[in-house]
């Protein structure tokens, strides 16, 4: 491996005026070229970590992969220099590029579960690059891999390599992938959203393991994420990107404490919505009493003895990780999954367990908004039809009366009435979710169930949706059952909170009480796992933990 003259002065990676383009093929139109990255420059010293942050479409992954001269699909690097260890890798030809991949630069993908070959044992895949590039013999590489497994606190480090990818949990696979990247002792690792797909309590473990491994091996890293609080934990410097252009680049402390650009400050303060908790007092209009539900004909219990109340015009947030049963609770309340035991009372009357047995008025007063607005709207219907249907269906409205109401609703969600003729495919992600909100509002409901409605959106867009929901609550007096895995969102919107864990409610009460110590073990774990925009938070959080996360 011909390395650069190691005079120690030049940066490890120096990207100058990088330009990346892609050819896209819109259906029914002529193919055209779009620019994904506009003349971005960056440099990285040996052993340092640079965080790349931005929303979807910011070009952060594309820039990260360019350090390996790699473009996904039709993506092509069309301009600029990528200088790694003192040479422009674009001039190295196919052989040169192949020699640096897996040797000088390694890659950790967002979904390790997909990135491992299902047909081979983990060990064979971990040591593959080291053997290929002649860094180590098989025996040496395996020894090193086991040491790395230990360092990354994987269980049973001696034998875990003998397993197949599907036999290992998601959080562990992500750590094995980090070990795979470290095994050939590269100079640089590209981490591409390595913790995004994980539950929040698992994320913190993986994050801590990655940080420690970076520190101990002295490898440099590009750490890509959409979550500024996560990036702040591992990076020395942070680069903020938007639409393929550089917004701001500075030390981690400067970016999160003294952002200079407006966009950066918006990202920093994204979770700070002031929300004053409403007083309880009024009697609940929806009471869930001792609900037990199961899938597969009673075989797989997903809800155990759950009881919660919802007060008029207030928000109950249901928080939990994947598999906690929070979405199942919504399905039980709506009647999609009739509970096996327990009852639901709504406005003083008992709701039928089965959807088919409920009256049209019961259905009207209980509306739902989904996580994926894309698939929650019929792609063949216009916005006008989508919002108008509940008006026709529940109130028998037609003609101009309906159109007038549609226009009012569009105004309420801060979209113009011209949108009535658009199709969902012609809207942005945030606009789609707004139309879904309008469709729910059209029914004049008393309760809207919001199932992870902001999870699929970029932070700033999600923020806008939350603000809209709060405004609408103030105007219409509608109550929300707000299901989420994200505690930051909960703080912004909830009046009371139910924490769910493995199908049971482990903590329940008004927001101020639920978020006030002393905590039970799980709530403590959950609260302490939410990344905060604070340098050194990760170390503090790990030290203060009392309970192991489920991913271990």
């Amino acid at each position, binding site marked *: 491996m011909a390395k650069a003259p190691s005079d120690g002065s030049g940066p490890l990676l120096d990207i100058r005026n990088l330009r990346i383009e892609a050819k896209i093929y819109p*259906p029914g139109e002529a193919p055209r070229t779009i620019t994904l990255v506009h003349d971005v420059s960056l440099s990285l010293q040996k052993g340092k970590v640079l965080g790349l942050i931005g929303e979807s479409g910011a070009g952060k992954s594309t820039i990260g992969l360019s350090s390996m001269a790699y473009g996904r699909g039709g993506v092509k690097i069309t301009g600029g220099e990528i200088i790694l260890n003192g040479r422009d890798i674009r001039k190295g030809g196919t052989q040169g590029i192949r020699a640096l991949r897996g040797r000088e630069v390694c890659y950790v993908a967002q979904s390790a579960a997909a990135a491992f070959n299902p047909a081979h044992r983990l060990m064979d895949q971990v040591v593959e690059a080291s053997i290929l590039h002649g860094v180590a013999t098989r025996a040496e590489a395996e020894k090193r891999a086991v040491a790395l497994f230990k360092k990354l606190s994987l269980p049973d480090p001696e034998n875990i390599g003998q397993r197949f990818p599907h036999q290992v949990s998601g959080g562990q696979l992500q750590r094995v992938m980090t070990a795979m990247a470290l095994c050939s002792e590269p100079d640089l690792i590209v981490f591409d959203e390595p913790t995004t797909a994980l539950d929040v309590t698992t994320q913190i473990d993986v994050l801590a393991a990655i940080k420690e491994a970076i520190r101990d091996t002295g490898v440099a890293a590009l750490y890509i994420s959409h979550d500024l609080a996560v990036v702040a934990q591992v990076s020395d410097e942070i680069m903020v990107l938007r639409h393929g252009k550089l917004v701001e680049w500075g030390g981690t402390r400067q970016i999160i404490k003294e952002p200079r650009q407006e966009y950066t400050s918006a990202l920093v303060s994204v979770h700070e919505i002031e929300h004053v908790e409403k007083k309880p007092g009024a009697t609940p209009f929806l009471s869930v009493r001792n609900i037990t539900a199961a899938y597969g004909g009673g075989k797989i219990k997903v809800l155990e003895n759950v009881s919660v109340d919802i007060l008029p015009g207030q928000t109950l947030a249901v928080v939990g990780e994947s598999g906690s049963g929070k979405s199942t609770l919504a399905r039980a309340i709506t009647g999609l999954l009739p509970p096996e035991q327990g009852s639901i009372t709504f406005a003083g009357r008992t709701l039928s367990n089965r959807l088919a047995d409920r009256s*049209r008025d019961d259905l009207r007063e209980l509306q739902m908004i*989904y996580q994926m607005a894309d698939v*929650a709207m*019929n792609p063949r219907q*216009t916005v006008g039809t989508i919002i108008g249907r*509940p008006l026709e269906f529940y109130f028998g409205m037609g003609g101009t009366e309906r159109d007038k109401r549609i226009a009012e609703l569009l105004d309420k969600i801060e979209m113009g009435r011209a949108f009535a003729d658009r199709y969902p*495919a*012609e809207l942005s992600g945030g606009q789609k979710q707004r139309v879904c909100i309008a*469709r729910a509002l059209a029914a004049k409901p008393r309760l809207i169930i919001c199932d992870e409605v902001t999870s699929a959106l970029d932070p700033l867009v999600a923020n806008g949706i939350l603000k809209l929901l709060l405004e609408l609550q103030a105007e219409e007096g509608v109550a929300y059952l707000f299901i989420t895995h994200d505690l930051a969102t909960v703080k912004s919107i909830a009046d009371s909170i139910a924490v769910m864990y493995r199908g049971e409610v482990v903590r329940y009460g008004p927001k101020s009480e639920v978020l006030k110590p002393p905590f039970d073990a799980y709530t403590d774990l959950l609260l302490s796992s939410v990344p905060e925009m604070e340098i050194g938070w990760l170390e503090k959080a790990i030290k203060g933990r009392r309970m192991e996360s489920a991913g271990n």
Partner: protein
Amino acid sequence: MLDLKRIPIAAWIGLILTTLFLIAAIFAPLIAPYGLGEIVGDVWAPMSSKFLLGTDNLGRDLLSRMIYGARTTIFIAVLATALSFSLGAILGFTAAVVGGWFDTSMSRFVDLLMAIPTLIFALVVLSVLPSTRVTLILVMGILDATRVYRLSRAVAVDINVMDFVEAAKLRGEGKGWIIFREILPNALSPLVSELGLRFIYAVLFLSALSFLGLGVQPPDADWGGMVKENKDGIVFGIPAALIPAAAIAALAISVNLVADWVLNRTTDLKGGRGNG
């Protein structure tokens, strides 16, 4: 809505040829220079200005028989496709939306029918039934409905679990609205393309049966049967049998080109405008 300039050349060729075949089939008596069974010349006369495609094994004008044959072939294939399609699509959609025992028993029965190669099963049935047009249409339609059933059920099941259908169910909509307003518009483009493929299959299947002597019976003429009538000429170097065979291929290819274009125009659920 449809921009004519955006139709690719291949689809144009398909559309034009398909239209020509249809015109020939519909106006056969007006276009054909001679009658269907009329003996007008020598056996296997070569192509000439009098007989554009030559004559057949009995001295009948091949072009006229081709035109009448188009009528028989397309007529039976269209009816068989219509039968297979309405039967398969209705049962498939119903199975997907209703679910439960209806879905299970229908699906198992279709699995069973599909465990026997279609041609073999058709031969088994035709060994006892008379080869009339009605039998042919029924046998082809019912056997082919299994394929349509599988496809429409699969498409409908995919759409049925999507959130917008769930939203409609939560609103309290009835089965009719869900099938016709939510699912059908989104299932249309794969189904239309499948319609083309099923028609091609019906044409090829009917031709194969007639070629084997088990389809359309003389004195009626269809293209497969004409291949059979003229096949003995091949060994003498007379290509009369190749002409109806080529016509079958041309019809199938042109419908295929159209179906391919329809499918490519909308392969996903993203589009809204201009691709109904």
